[in-house]
């Protein structure tokens, strides 16, 4: 019996492997993608990157302009995240099982959260681009909406995880709903919430570049501009500064996280 099952399992593995190979083959032949051809272009692509994406003396001259746009992008991300955090806090308190005022608001808060979360930030910026036009407000709103969705979800979990026993104790002293939320629930979930906000600032700085390309604002717009002008030296410098900025901010937020947790 056992032996039989083992044989069956062996066959199952082989069977699934065959299926995967067939599916891969079919999809490559439908999309005309040739794996070997693709691999062969990699050395050429790397060679092109090294010969074209060079930071030259000329491109360094653009540095002040790049830094200004980079700063704009970073501050927009921070502003969008912090504002979204305030809205998310209210939505999360309404949505959480432990602090909800009633079922109706809880469902609404959760619906808003999942609706704005499940549409990707790229889609949001394209949708908002149509209605708000090409300006920094559009980029800001796109980041804001997507962040509200994500942070609300994360905050609801932080609030739910907070220790219920102190809520019980404060209720027993005759404390009001707002007393309990402000003095028992928030102090307990605040470190986690701050950690999520920092994470979202990092993420938003990354996506702000992409959103900038789409909505024509910030560093993303600059990237797009020089890219289309085939001024690859400046493109390289922009990419480099973005990478540095993202790394610096990640290191910073890790430091902050260590202090608050």
């Amino acid at each position, binding site marked *: 019996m056992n032996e039989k099952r083992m044989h069956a399992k062996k066959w199952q593995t082989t069977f699934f492997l065959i299926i995967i190979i067939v599916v891969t083959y079919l999809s490559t032949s439908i999309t005309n993608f040739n794996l070997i051809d693709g691999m062969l272009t990699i050395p050429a692509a790397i060679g092109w990157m090294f010969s074209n994406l060079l930071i030259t003396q000329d491109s360094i001259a653009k540095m002040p302009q790049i830094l200004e746009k980079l700063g704009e992008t970073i501050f927009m991300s921070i502003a969008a995240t912090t504002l979204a955090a305030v809205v998310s806090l209210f939505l999360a308190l309404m949505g959480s099982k432990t602090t909800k005022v009633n079922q109706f608001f809880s469902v609404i808060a959760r619906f808003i959260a999942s609706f704005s979360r499940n549409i990707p930030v790229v889609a949001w910026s394209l949708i908002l681009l149509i209605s708000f036009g090409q300006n920094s407000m559009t980029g800001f709103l796109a980041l804001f909406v997507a962040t509200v969705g994500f942070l609300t979800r994360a905050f609801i979990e932080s609030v739910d995880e907070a220790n219920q026993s102190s809520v019980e*104790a*404060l209720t027993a002293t005759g404390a009001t709903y707002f007393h309990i939320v402000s003095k028992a629930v928030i102090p307990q979930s605040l470190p986690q919430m701050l950690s999520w906000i920092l994470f979202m600032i990092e993420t938003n700085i990354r996506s702000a570049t992409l959103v900038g390309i789409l909505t024509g604002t910030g560093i993303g717009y600059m990237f797009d501009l020089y890219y289309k002008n085939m001024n690859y030296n400046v493109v390289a410098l922009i990419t480099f500064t973005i990478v540095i900025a993202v790394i610096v901010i990640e290191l910073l937020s890790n430091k902050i996280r260590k202090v608050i947790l």
Partner: protein
Amino acid sequence: MEYVLVNAYSIFPIIQKGVCSMSLLKVEELSKLYDGETRVLKNVSFEANAGEFLSVIGPSGAGKSTLLRCINRMVEISGGKVKFDGIDVGAMKKKELRKLRTNIGMIFQHYNLVPRLTVIENVLHGRFGYKSTLQGVLGRFTEEEKERAFFLLQKLGISEHAYKRCDQLSGGQQQRVGICRALIQEPKLILCDEPIASLDPNSSKVIMDYLKTISTELGITCIVNLHQVEVAKEYADRIIGLKEGEIVFDGPSKVLYRDQIEHIYGIESRELITV
């Protein structure tokens, strides 16, 4: 006694010496159903006088915690009445209920403090019942309240930890913070839900001594849920034995004999109790 709360009457102007021994709490035919079917309490009736030290004993699941939480309506009452100071608790509206809860302190097995806040903040939480929403959210406490908080911490021997975070304290110290939080409410009644169940014998003794002092010196009624029969017999004036949601014993702790303990806990647990 070592831990005497001196000058207690001057800090608690509400509580006067020689409180009349009328019944403070009256529980009549109280019953509680969970989910409309599980009967946790069946026709529980008893009275508690001012300044009385009452202990509720019984096996796990007998309904001890539910009984306490029906008194300050942390759980809704299904049947019967609870009268505190002659007023029906079950019929209270939100505002009256808040006022009731300021008069009833509560102490928990797991202390139920906010672990990330300091000791003094946790003690002052006991004043929320007297605060408006805005005052409470902004943390506006009067000098008098702060002084009283320090006074209580001093009396319970933990004033040197006032600015420490609660999660840095030992279990016994945390429970003392819990007692301070209950006392600063200026309650007439303190409900203790297994106050020593997670403490070592030494801390347990300290906590029980404090609770006894509170009832004798301050005239605050204490209703204490306990697992340990010996502790109940040593400290309580009166013991209520609860079994499967019903009162099977109610009388002075002196007359609680072995056969009654066996009846409350069931014959099988006899060896464990007497150890």
